[in-house]
Each structure stands twice: as structure tokens, then as C-alpha cells.
């Protein structure tokens, strides 16, 4: 016979046991918030346990057994999180699915994971499941959260969350052993149980189900919660996709471990308002969110009165000079501190308040490269923004930057208790406390990813920088070598170029060649704006792209990239020798970009073969004619003589750098 206190005092190797601990130790602390009808509703840990227990007992009554899987489909709603916990309490495995998954993807995941139950957020998700119902042989019952529009549906195998909870509450009232049965189920749970199966987004081929064990999840989350000093005084806003490892880790797992409060936004569109109202202390967002926010701030400032605008720009300049040093605790002249303090009062404080960043102690970004200026902007305002590198297979963290040791071009040293090794081919390998057990029902893929010694292959190429921070340069399969053997990472070079506002797209070539060269696309907005300010008239994109002054400007950008590359021993050899500005914008309609706006390097190489030839044969210009597809589907041809510029190449600065340190 188990009792709650005994379980909570024992080995906390599953999330349900942590839940009991929190409900005992933090009974009246807030655990969850949700905005309903415009008012924030709060549940304490004790109340959350109560909700989860009622639902779990109802689910058990419906026939849920240890080992069953349950799909959880929808956005960040408390009841969906409670379903995850309830399923774990009963010894089952939750399988969250992206809310925006199309029916086909949904069917694949539900079928592959043999789900017996499904929790759907609303009518939309219920409809999706029903539309593929004939393929889901193992699916027995479905539960929904929001009853809207579902009144007329056949309810023989469809149940509302309330109905299941009511059943559970009835059992608690009438069945003397019900409460005990719930605790017994939790006690039966072992740390080695599969805690959750997270399906990867599947950008390459079919998505794979990453199995994570309870004890490993908790070990990883405990490490990082300690690393970032998270406690039950913290608060987060759960707005990342529920099925994404980031949400499960940062909000659910760390929340359970540290006992902090998770707030659910009112709807996906209100996240910005909710952020401001909740004022989270821990925050994660991908770089494009930060970029979007900065753009919005800048546009608003353009519309502000001239006094405000001047004040803003003056103090942003002050922040640029002293902000990061103050944040990292480096020495700053007294006058600088004074000015920064004034700026904080007048600009940074109010700005952070509007963005909902006032209380943030730790913020992370990850997923793609972040521009140095963008990164510095937020950090100079006093936002402790850091980078991490992670994977679903690692249960998120592989590396994380420490407070005070933050750079925009690296992702930090190994996270606590994570081992990292760079393979001979340059691929990043790791062993981590949270690493996955294997792919569900896919041993071949598991064997491909985890080698005999237990190293997990990330598929990303990277190297350690001089101060021990990891730099991720590209997908391992895209990394090539120049003829002399120098590492050539096209995306790394392209990203550096794209951080310049004038450059919209860049395509780097060099694999198996003597040196690297790039095609550039100018950003018509940025360059057009510049042309307007400088009284340069142009009739078309093509004309502007070929303008001598535009070439000058981009040449200085490329030069800066070369200087940058020269400072990095591994990359110095891949400096750009020659570049050209394409006469047309790369376009998904012409097959040059994917629909998600990623360059298709090999297709472009084929299509513009004469230009590549010209880049490498030393000619200074080249005539080219290309077919283009207009938006209405008509085809046309455009031709141009494209100029090619030679660049200065700098000597690698390895010795110099080491001497300087």
C-alpha cells in the first residue's frame, strides 16, 4: 500500500511522482494558469493533482491500461497537459501531435504509435481524427476539450473531458479504493518506463517517434533547472507547439522538476498580450520571433513623435556601447553606468515591459543562426538572452551558454553532464543524461543514429571554438571540402552574408573546387530604400542589382565576411574569392527555393551553370539568359550581362589570435 507522502519522499524517477511531491510540498503554490473569458484562472499544485486524478480515474474506467498509448492533439491548453500527466500516472505513454498537422501526417503518427486513445482539443482536431478513422484500427475512444460544435456528434466512442472527469470524481466518491488505486498505479511506474514519444517534425522523410524514458527526462531537466537556477518562484508562458520537444522540456519537464507555474495563452494570436500580462521569468523563442519583434518596435518608433524618436535612438546607442558589458559584469565607466541607468528608466524598462520581458531572468534562442546585431540588441537592453543547441534525441539540451559567457556565433559549451565529441568527418556526436532510448518501432534508424559506443550522431557539422564553445556550421551532409582539403560549409558562409540587411539570399559554391564563390540576391526593400535616399533611379530589380554603387556596397559586405572568416582557423581557407549579384530574385516558382524559402543549391548550380563557369574561369562578366515563371504561370525569358567581382583574401589569423589571448 502506497501513500502520497511516501511516494513523494521516495525516488522521484517519474513525472507522476514529481506531481505528488509538488502537490504535497507546494500544495498552495500556483502550478497552472489559463486566461478564460478575459480573466486569468489559476490552479495550485494541489488542484492540478485533483484534476489529473479525476481524469485518470475516469480514463481508467474507460478501459485505459498500463502500456496503452494516447495521442494528445492540440494547442497549449491545461487539459491537454493534464492528459499527458494522467496518462503517465496510469503507466501509459502520451504521444503529442502537432495541432497543425494535416490529416495524413496525423494518421501516420496515430497509426504508427498504435494509439488506443486520443485527446483532441476541439472540433477541428476531432474531425481530423474521424476523417482518417478507418485507418486507425487500434483507436478505441476519443476525448475532447472544447465541446463547441460537437453536440450532434455520435458520442458512443467520443467523450467530453468533463464527462470523463465526472466519472472519475464519481468513482472517488463511491468507490472506497479509487484514490488508493490511483496512488498504486503511480507507485508501479518505473524510471525506465517510456515517459513520452515525441515525433520529429520529419523534414526529411517520415517522422520518427523518439522514445524518452522518465528517469532520463528528469535527470536532464534537473540538470538544466539547476544550471539556470529555476525555482518555484519562476513562471513561464507555454506557447510553443505542445508536440515539440522544446515545449515538453522547457515547460512541462522543468516545471515538474522545479515546481514553477506554467501559463497557457488565451489563443495563439494573443501570445504577445499574454506575455505582457504574465511577465514570464524564463523564456524561449526562435530567432525569427526576436527579429519580428525588433521590426515591429522599429516601425512603431518611426511613427513616434520626433522627441521620443530621438530619445529612443540616443539611448539605444548608449545601450549598444555599455549594455552588454553591464549585463556580463564587465567594467564600465561610471558615466556609462549613469547614462545606462537613465536609459533604463526612460527607454529600456518601458520597452521591455511592452514586450513582456520585464521579469525575464533567462531567455534562450535556438533553431537557426541569429544575427549578431539582433542578438546584441536584446542583450544590450539587459535581457539575458543566451543560445542553446539541442535535439529531440537529446531531450533538448546538448549545449547551453552560461550566464556571462555569451556569444552570438556559438551555441555554448556542453550542457551539464553532456559529453560532446566531433567525429573525423566533422559531425557533432553526444552522450547526454536525457538522451533517447531509441526510435519507436524503427531499430534500423536507431542503429543509424546511435553508434556501438553509445554516441548519438546529430547530423550537424560543427567544431569547438578557441574558448570551448561549440559552433554549428551546417548539416553534415551539406559540408564539403575545397580541392586543398579546407572545410567548406556553404550555409555558414551564406548565413554570415544574410545578416547584412542588403543581402536577401546568398548561395555559396566551393565543394570540390579551388576556392569558394557566391551568388548574391539583393534585398529590394533595403537596397531600394537606400537608392531612394541617395537619389539613384532604377527601373527594375535587374537594373538595381547591376548598379555599380550597389556592387560597391555589397563588395564591402563580402569583405567584412572574409575578415570574419579569416579570424576562424577552421574556416579561413573558405574565404570568398569571387562573387556576383544575380540579375533576378531567386524564387520558389522557378524551383530555386523550397516553399519554406531555403535555397536549393544543386538546382541553382545547374540552372546557372554558365555563371558558375565564369566565376571559376576568371572572366569579369558573363551574359546569361534565364527562363522565368510569372505569378500567373506564364513563362518569359530575361537576359543580362552579370558582372563578377574579385575579392581580397586575408591570411588566416590563427597565430595572431592565440597571441592576443
Amino acid at each position: 500500500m502506497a501513500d502520497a507522502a511516501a511516494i513523494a519522499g521516495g525516488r522521484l524517477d517519474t513525472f507522476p511522482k514529481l506531481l505528488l511531491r509538488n502537490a504535497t510540498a507546494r500544495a498552495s503554490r500556483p502550478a497552472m494558469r489559463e486566461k478564460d473569458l478575459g480573466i486569468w484562472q489559476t490552479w495550485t499544485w494541489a488542484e492540478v493533482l485533483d484534476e489529473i486524478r479525476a481524469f485518470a480515474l475516469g480514463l481508467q474506467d474507460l478501459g485505459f491500461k498500463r502500456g496503452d498509448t494516447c495521442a494528445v492533439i492540440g494547442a497549449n491548453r491545461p487539459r491537454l497537459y493534464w492528459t499527458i500527466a494522467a496518462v503517465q500516472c496510469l503507466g501509459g505513454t502520451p504521444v503529442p501531435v502537432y495541432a497543425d498537422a494535416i490529416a495524413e501526417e496525423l494518421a501516420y503518427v496515430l497509426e504508427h504509435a498504435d494509439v488506443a486513445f486520443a485527446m483532441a482539443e476541439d472540433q477541428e482536431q476531432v474531425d481530423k481524427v474521424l476523417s482518417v478513422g478507418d485507418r486507425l484500427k487500434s483507436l478505441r475512444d476519443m476525448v475532447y476539450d472544447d465541446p463547441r460544435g460537437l453536440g450532434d456528434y455520435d458520442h458512443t466512442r467520443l467523450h467530453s473531458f468533463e464527462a470523463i472527469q465526472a466519472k472519475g470524481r464519481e468513482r472517488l466518491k463511491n468507490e472506497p479504493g479509487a484514490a488508493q488505486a490511483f496512488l498504486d498505479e503511480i507507485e508501479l511506474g518505473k524510471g525506465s518506463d517510456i515517459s513520452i514519444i515525441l515525433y520529429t517534425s520529419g523534414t526529411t522523410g517520415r517522422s520518427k517517434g523518439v522514445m524518452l524514458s522518465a528517469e532520463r527526462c528528469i535527470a536532464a531537466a534537473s540538470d538544466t533547472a539547476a544550471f539556470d537556477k529555476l525555482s518555484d518562484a519562476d513562471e513561464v508562458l507555454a506557447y510553443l507547439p505542445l508536440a515539440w520537444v522544446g515545449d515538453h522540456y522547457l515547460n512541462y519537464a522543468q516545471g515538474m522538476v522545479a515546481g514553477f507555474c506554467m501559463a497557457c495563452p488565451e489563443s495563439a494570436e494573443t501570445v504577445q498580450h499574454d506575455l505582457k500580462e504574465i511577465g514570464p521569468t524564463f523564456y524561449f523563442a526562435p530567432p525569427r520571433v526576436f527579429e519580428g519583434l525588433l521590426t515591429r518596435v522599429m516601425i512603431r518608433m518611426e511613427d513616434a513623435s520626433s522627441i521620443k524618436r530621438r530619445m529612443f535612438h540616443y539611448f539605444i546607442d548608449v545601450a549598444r556601447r555599455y549594455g552588454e558589458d553591464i549585463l556580463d559584469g564587465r567594467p564600465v565607466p561610471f558615466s556609462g553606468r549613469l547614462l545606462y541607468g537613465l536609459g533604463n528608466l526612460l527607454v529600456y524598462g518601458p520597452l521591455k515591459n511592452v514586450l513582456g520581458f520585464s521579469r525575464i531572468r533567462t531567455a534562450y534562442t535556438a533553431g537557426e543562426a541569429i544575427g549578431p546585431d539582433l542578438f546584441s540588441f536584446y542583450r544590450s537592453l539587459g535581457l539575458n538572452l543566451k543560445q542553446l543547441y539541442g535535439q529531440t534525441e537529446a531531450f533538448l539540451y546538448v549545449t547551453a551558454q552560461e550566464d556571462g559567457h555569451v556569444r552570438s556565433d556559438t551555441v555554448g559549451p556542453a550542457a551539464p553532464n553532456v559529453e560532446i565529441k566531433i567525429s573525423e568527418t566533422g559531425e557533432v556526436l553526444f552522450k547526454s543524461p536525457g538522451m533517447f532510448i531509441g526510435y519507436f518501432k524503427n531499430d534500423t534508424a536507431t542503429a543509424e543514429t546511435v553508434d556501438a559506443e553509445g554516441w548519438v550522431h546529430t547530423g550537424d557539422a560543427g567544431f569547438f571554438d578557441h574558448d570551448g564553445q561549440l559552433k554549428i556550421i551546417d548539416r553534415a551532409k551539406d559540408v564539403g571540402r575545397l580541392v586543398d582539403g579546407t572545410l567548406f560549409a556553404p550555409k555558414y558562409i551564406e548565413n554570415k552574408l544574410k545578416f547584412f540587411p542588403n543581402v536577401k539570399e546568398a548561395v555559396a559554391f566551393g565543394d570540390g573546387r579551388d576556392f569558394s564563390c557566391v551568388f548574391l540576391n539583393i534585398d529590394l526593400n533595403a537596397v531600394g530604400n537606400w537608392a531612394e535616399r541617395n537619389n539613384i533611379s532604377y527601373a527594375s530589380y535587374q537594373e538595381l542589382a547591376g548598379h555599380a554603387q550597389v556592387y560597391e556596397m555589397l563588395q564591402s559586405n563580402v569583405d567584412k565576411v572574409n575578415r570574419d572568416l579569416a579570424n576562424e582557423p577552421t574556416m579561413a581557407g573558405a574565404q570568398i574569392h569571387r562573387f556576383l549579384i544575380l540579375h533576378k530574385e531567386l524564387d520558389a516558382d522557378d524551383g530555386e527555393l523550397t516553399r519554406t524559402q531555403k535555397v536549393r543549391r544543386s538546382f541553382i548550380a545547374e540552372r546557372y551553370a554558365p555563371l558558375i563557369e565564369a566565376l571559376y574561369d576568371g572572366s569579369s562578366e558573363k551574359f546569361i539568359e534565364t527562363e522565368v515563371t510569372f505569378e500567373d504561370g506564364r513563362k518569359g525569358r530575361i537576359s543580362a550581362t552579370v558582372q563578377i567581382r574579385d575579392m581580397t583574401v586575408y591570411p588566416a589569423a590563427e597565430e595572431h589570435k592565440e597571441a592576443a589571448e
Partner: protein
Amino acid sequence: MNAATETAVAGETAGREVLLKVENVSLSFGGVRAITNISFDIQKGEIRAIIGPNGAGKTSMLNVINGFYHPQEGVITFKGEARSKMRPYEAASQGIARTFQNVALFKGMSTLDNIMSGRTLLMKRHFFWHLFHYGPARREEIEHRRKVEEIIDFLEIQHIRRAPVGRLPYGLQKRVELGRALAMEPELLLLDEPMAGMNLEEKEDMSRFILDVNSQFGTTIALIEHDMGVVMDLSDRVVVLDYGKKIADGTPEEVQANQDVIDAYLGVSH
């Protein structure tokens, strides 16, 4: 919808009680006859479409129903009570709400305040108390605010709750206007071209809201709309006007098959 449910719906419609009845109504402005001797009824709980080419008298008909125009001839019976002359606010207090062809919101006010304004007629406390936001007035406002929040939740416009409506895109303004009409808790909701100027996605959303209003609140709806796809999908019965005269009345299928309608309006059926 399959054949079985269709007949069921048609059968249901036939047995429904009549909410509003228009009998031999004529309306003219000086020498111009906008509406000539029109009769039709709107049954409780149905979605009734009024269609017709431009200038057929659809909006005039709507204006007659909600008391903005007074017909020279004819009788309008609402909830079994015949009326001759009635002001719009009297119609409103009887339970008729409407939206307009051109959005008619208070542009400088927030979404919340606009929808709240729809509840003016339901506010019972004296103006004096509301002035001080005190006692019963305060309690009343909280009650009304709850209703308004339910509507905001229903129409999924939480993210624009505090935004001045003048700054919102057109599709959202239309939705706010529907919200304001719903705030009156009407028995009969008149929608004047709810989909005009919307893109496909906005139309789909609006259609869903109209169907949900009808099924969830049981509100009777009369709508004017030019998008035939929408009309045929949403409405239980359709009345067709042309040059101020009624030329057809019946289920969407019947109307679609009617030769007069095809000639006057629909062109070739598709």
C-alpha cells in the same frame, strides 16, 4: 449533407412556428417603388436568405423589417404582434438585431467597447449609478462584461479585444459587428451582406460563425448575400427579389431550379 437529412430538415422547417411575417408590403420613395406587394415569412430557428440582383430591394426590405423604413402598405407581424409604425430602437428592444452592408462600428472605440454597446438596451440600472460605476451598476456591468467575453470567445477575437476597431482589417471589423449584434441576444438577426469584400478564408470563418450562432444560440437569421455558394450552403429557405417584386421563394434547390430566377439573376445554373 445526404438526402435523408435534407428531407428531415425540410420537414422540420415546414412545422416550425412563424417568427416574422411580411404581408403585402409596398414601399416607395416619391415615385420610385422600391418594394411592391411582397409577402413572405421567417420561421423560428431557420436561416433565411434574401437574394436578388443589385437594386432589387433587398436592403430596403431589411430596413423595413427593423423599422428604419415604414412601408406605405402592408402588415408586418413579429412574434404574433402586428405593427404599423415602429422605430429601429423599438425593433431592437423586441429582439431584432442587424449588421450593415458597410461596417457601421464606432471606429475609435475598442472591440470590447463596441460589443458592449450592443448591450445598452439590456442595461437596467440608472445612468446616474453608471456614472459613478458603483453598487448595483458595477455588478450589472460585470454581468454584461461576462456576456461580452463569451461572445469574444465565441467569435475568436480575443487578440483584438483592446484594439481600436478602425485599425482592424475589414474581415475582422465584420466579425466585431456580428459580435455587437449578438450582444443584444436577438431572436432575429439580420445580416446585410456579411461576406462582402472578404477573402475565401474569411468567408469560411464567417459561414461557420453564422451556422454556429444558429445552432448554438438558436437565433433565427435572415441574410442578404451575393455569394451564391454561401447562400445555397447556409440557408434553409431563400426568397428572391427582382425590381422590388418577389419572384421565387423556397428551398435553395427549388430556387435554383426556378426559371424566373435563372433568367433574372443566376444566369446559367452551375
